[in-house]
């Protein structure tokens, strides 16, 4: 009895998956439960397991190919079983991975062209993808420079470090595309990864239909910083980060304010009695928001350990779906990247997200005198369908009291 | 100049096989029989795929190893060629360790890293089987150099095949050994063929002991290698010269191998005839000693049968041990490339 291997929904939001690697070759004996392949979902790389016994007779898609959930990607059958009917009935799979492809330089309809006097003296790179040094590629990625729009000054038009630096510095005037780039479509198409597609779709959903407003407050973190230092002096077991203290405070404040700890469900609002705190983590692939469940009931040490563990797993793409779904409210912190203040985009169906800025030594008036204090700006994005201005403000008041008097976190 | 008996293993004016001191004879017989049965078993293991690579059996030449090595002290040194199983056993390397090495196992005398051609054993100063013809002859001279440097009275025995006399390293080593008076026995096991090329077809002087004439102070001696007593007596003289006068000797021991060069060639029929092989087999060094002892009344048939049984048990034990010894762990791959300490 033949068993079809389907692209399965391996994450709650997965609509299609990229088959990263076949773990079993064609012809391999497989048992139900064996890992057949690794599949990149919108969130992580997951295992696709066999649902029947027999021989993996056919791999219907190649490694690197993306297939929609529910499509047939392989066939398990007896070694001699006739599976021709299954094979012919299966929809044609995409032929190859959608690897980065350069636009063709010349129209395929002009095969005889090159001989004429028009044959340009363009650099040899004219017909290929953008030539660039490995370093230039890395720098471009880091600084968000589009390599295709940079004129290369190296041999053969190679884009090198100084070109990227000039482009990043806004030296647009210095950039003149070589002739080759104008005459040929010298650009690169980069297919969307699953995670990027999901981010785009969901963030667009957010900024569009969600009527968002923002509340910013500046907290005095001096005591929180002192507390952290005192705790750290007690030994390694007591070392936590300022971010851990913020997470703990937010969770505690949320427990006191269920009116902001809620989901907008279209036809209803669900207010939560438990606090499942999402923490945004930047990974090489993009943003992911693992969850600290029941964060309000956890001590600082547990939160610290758990947040570190989740962040590590996120970066290694080892999170399981249950670790990044189910949050009731989220926190995003760019303080470590010296961002003073920013607005974060709500992760629906949640109704609020808190954006944490950098700690800064700031002169402020304390008891009538100027003092230098550690200050931190937080900005809360609120879904106005659920949270009104005063409601959000009250939550921030509570949060301020806790962070400015961190002893409260102990009770 | 030492006397050179015009004798060879083919039996022309060959030594009369005689029995000697009964206890010593028994010991030597046991040593030779162990080598014989061990090598037969090695051939069997090779056929079963338990031993791999190049493998050169010693069958027929046992009187050479036993005759020479039985005269050595434990602190003397032995170095030789890739045909080294018999010498390792004669030197006292445990049959288990030699068989385990052949099987490529962790309990081998070279921890499974050497194989048939590279038996080493520090405890018995067995400095290895070496795989490049002639390359180890300077090493043997170097061991002699170290002995002399330290003012010791040990000797080094350097075994080699007949083909070695035609390679440059042989000449360079013998020249310096004579020049610097190094206590080394250069022992040519002349089994008449370097692989399939006979001595006559390879050496411009086929009386190989005459090579010693080129080096002042070096004795060149021809010995009947099918008679363990002849080998032993000649070894005694050469060893005494080395120990007391620090003088090197060149011993040409005329012997014969009863098997092919290695495991993949015909025993006879190409470069040598079946008749020739059979003629030499009538001079078998192991059975010659046995027969001489039985005739002299120093060995009964029952004792012989018991000796066969004991040796068979030892060899079987070596096999079983090797078979059960683990393969070297993968981690051993990168071990012993370099010593990782400096003194």
């Amino acid at each position: 009895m033949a068993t079809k291997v389907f692209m399965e929904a391996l994450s709650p939001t997965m609509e299609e998956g990229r088959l990263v690697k076949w773990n079993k070759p064609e012809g391999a004996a497989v048992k139900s439960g064996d890992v057949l392949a690794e599949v990149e979902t919108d969130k992580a790389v997951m295992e696709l397991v066999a649902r029947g016994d027999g021989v993996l007779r056919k791999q219907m898609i190649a490694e690197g190919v993306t297939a929609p959930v529910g499509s047939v990607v392989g066939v398990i059958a007896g070694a001699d079983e006739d599976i021709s009917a299954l094979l012919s009935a299966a929809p044609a799979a995409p032929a190859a991975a959608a690897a980065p492809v350069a636009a063709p330089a010349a129209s395929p309809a002009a095969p005889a062209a090159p001989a004429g006097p028009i044959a340009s003296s363009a650099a040899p790179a004219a017909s290929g993808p953008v030539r660039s040094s490995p370093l230039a590629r890395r720098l471009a990625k880091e600084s968000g420079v589009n390599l295709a729009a940079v004129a290369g000054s190296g041999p053969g038009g190679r884009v090198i470090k100084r070109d990227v630096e000039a482009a990043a510095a806004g030296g647009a005037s210095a950039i003149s595309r070589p002739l080759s780039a104008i005459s040929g479509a010298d650009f690169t198409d980069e297919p969307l990864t699953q995670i990027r597609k999901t981010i785009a779709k969901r963030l667009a959903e957010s900024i569009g239909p969600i009527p968002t407003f923002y509340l910013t407050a500046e907290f005095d973190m001096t005591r929180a910083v002192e507390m952290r230092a005192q705790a750290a002096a007690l030994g390694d077991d007591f070392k936590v980060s300022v971010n851990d203290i913020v997470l703990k405070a937010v969770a505690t404040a949320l427990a006191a304010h269920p009116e902001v700890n809620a989901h907008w469900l279209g036809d209803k609002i669900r207010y939560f009695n438990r606090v499942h705190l999402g923490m945004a983590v930047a990974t090489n692939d993009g943003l992911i928001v693992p969850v600290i469940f029941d964060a309000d009931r956890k001590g600082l040490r547990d939160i610290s350990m758990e947040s570190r563990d989740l962040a590590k797993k996120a970066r290694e793409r080892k999170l399981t779906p249950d670790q990044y779904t189910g949050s009731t409210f989220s926190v995003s912190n760019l303080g470590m990247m010296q961002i003073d203040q920013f607005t974060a985009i709500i992760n629906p169906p949640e109704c609020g997200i808190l954006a944490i800025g950098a700690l800064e030594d700031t002169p402020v008036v304390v008891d009538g005198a100027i003092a230098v204090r550690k200050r931190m700006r937080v900005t809360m994005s609120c879904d106005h369908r659920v949270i009104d201005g005063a409601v959000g403000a009250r939550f921030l008041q509570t949060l301020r009291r806790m962070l400015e008097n961190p002893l409260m976190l102990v009770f | 100049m030492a006397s050179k008996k015009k004798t060879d293993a083919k039996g022309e004016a060959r030594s009369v096989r005689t029995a000697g001191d009964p206890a010593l004879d028994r010991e030597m017989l046991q040593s030779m029989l162990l080598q014989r049965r061990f090598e037969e078993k090695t051939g069997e293991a090779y056929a079963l795929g338990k031993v791999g690579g190049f493998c050169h059996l010693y069958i027929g030449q046992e009187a050479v190893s036993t005759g020479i090595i039985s005269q050595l002290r434990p602190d003397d040194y032995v170095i030789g060629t890739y045909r080294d199983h018999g010498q390792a056993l004669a030197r006292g390397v445990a049959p288990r360790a030699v068989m385990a090495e052949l099987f490529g196992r962790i309990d081998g005398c070279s921890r499974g890293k050497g194989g048939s051609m590279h038996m080493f054993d520090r405890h018995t100063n067995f400095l290895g089987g070496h795989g490049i013809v002639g390359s180890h002859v300077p090493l043997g001279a170097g061991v002699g150099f170290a002995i002399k440097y330290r003012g010791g009275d040990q000797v080094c025995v350097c075994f080699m095949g007949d083909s070695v006399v035609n390679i440059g390293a042989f000449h360079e080593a013998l020249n310096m050994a004579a020049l610097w008076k190094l206590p080394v026995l250069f022992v040519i096991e002349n089994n008449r063929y370097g692989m399939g090329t006979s001595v006559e077809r390879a050496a411009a002087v086929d009386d190989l002991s005459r090579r010693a004439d080129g080096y002042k102070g070096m004795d060149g001696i021809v010995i009947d290698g099918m008679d363990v007593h002849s080998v032993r007596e000649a070894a005694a003289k050469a060893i005494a010269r080395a120990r007391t006068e620090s003088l090197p000797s060149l011993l040409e021991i005329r012997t014969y191998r009863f098997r092919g060069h290695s495991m993949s060639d015909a025993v006879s029929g190409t470069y040598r005839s079946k008749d020739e092989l059979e003629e030499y087999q009538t001079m078998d060094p192991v059975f010659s000693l046995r027969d001489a002892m039985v005739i002299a009344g120093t060995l009964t048939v029952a004792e012989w049968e018991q000796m066969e049984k004991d040796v068979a048990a030892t060899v079987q034990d070596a096999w079983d041990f090797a078979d059960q010894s683990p393969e070297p762990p993968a981690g051993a791959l990168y071990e012993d490339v370099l010593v990782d300490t400096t003194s």
Partner: protein
Amino acid sequence: MPIITYREALNQALREEMSRDDRVYLMGEEVGVYNGAYKVSKGLLEEFGENRVVDSPIAELGFAGIGVGSAMAGLRPVIEFMTWNFALLAIDQVVNSAAKMLYMSGGQFNVPIVFRGPNGAALQLGAQHSQAFESWLAHIPGIKVLSPGTPYDAKGLLKSAIRDDNPVVVLEGEMLYNTKGEVPDHEYLIPLGKADRKREGGDCSIITSGKMALVAMQVADQLAKEDIHVDVIDLLTIRPMDVEAIYESVRKTNRAVVLEEGWEICGIGAQVVDFIQRECFDDLDAPVIRVHQADVPMPYAKNLEKIAKPDAAKTIAAVKQVMYRS
């Protein structure tokens, strides 16, 4: 600090180590009565006697093998080859005996031996006497290969080599013996397997060793006048190579030139480039360029010889090429 020649530095190293350990002896052609073909062993026969400073016949294979055998039996020989060109006659003992012994004996017999002598081209010595063998020797697991360029490095490395329990090859340079440099009068050792940054700069790495380290330093000084600052990494030990030093430098400069005395094909530079592309791919702003001897036997004629050899001008051109400067 005293300034002495490379030759004297090696001589001091030998003298000190022979005084320190009576298992150490020197053997080779003309090392004794003649005081050394290049006078490296000057005075040692007188000081240590003919038991420990041994004039050998011209028989590289033989005396190299005697060295290995004596090392197996507990001595610590220093074998001098009059030049590495002649050592080809003894390569069997270096490769098949010394380098293999520890491994094929399952760790039982190590070979604490030093093979040393001049390597590379001098002046107009022709094809058979002008060869650099770094890559030949560094290819072999089981030996260490050193290539000191300065008197300081020569002394510190040779002393470490003699104390090392492994076979160590020391590649000296005929043209280096007369060069001078500071060498401390107190005892010191240089660890094997560690590179030395001879010049510090952020614009381009030059990875090199031996005689070529001197060329690289000249290049660095010259380019500094044009405000180009090169990082000169003198490998000192070719095997095992200090890859971390290479990575650190290339990650800083994003550009590298590998300068070696020998030939191009399968040369040391090829290996260095491989290490760089594996570990520093995303740090490179230009392909790594190699500077080496022309791919021909060394000619005798003075003008041809000059063209054939790697030199400062070729290295400067290479640095500018990887910096996209002309």
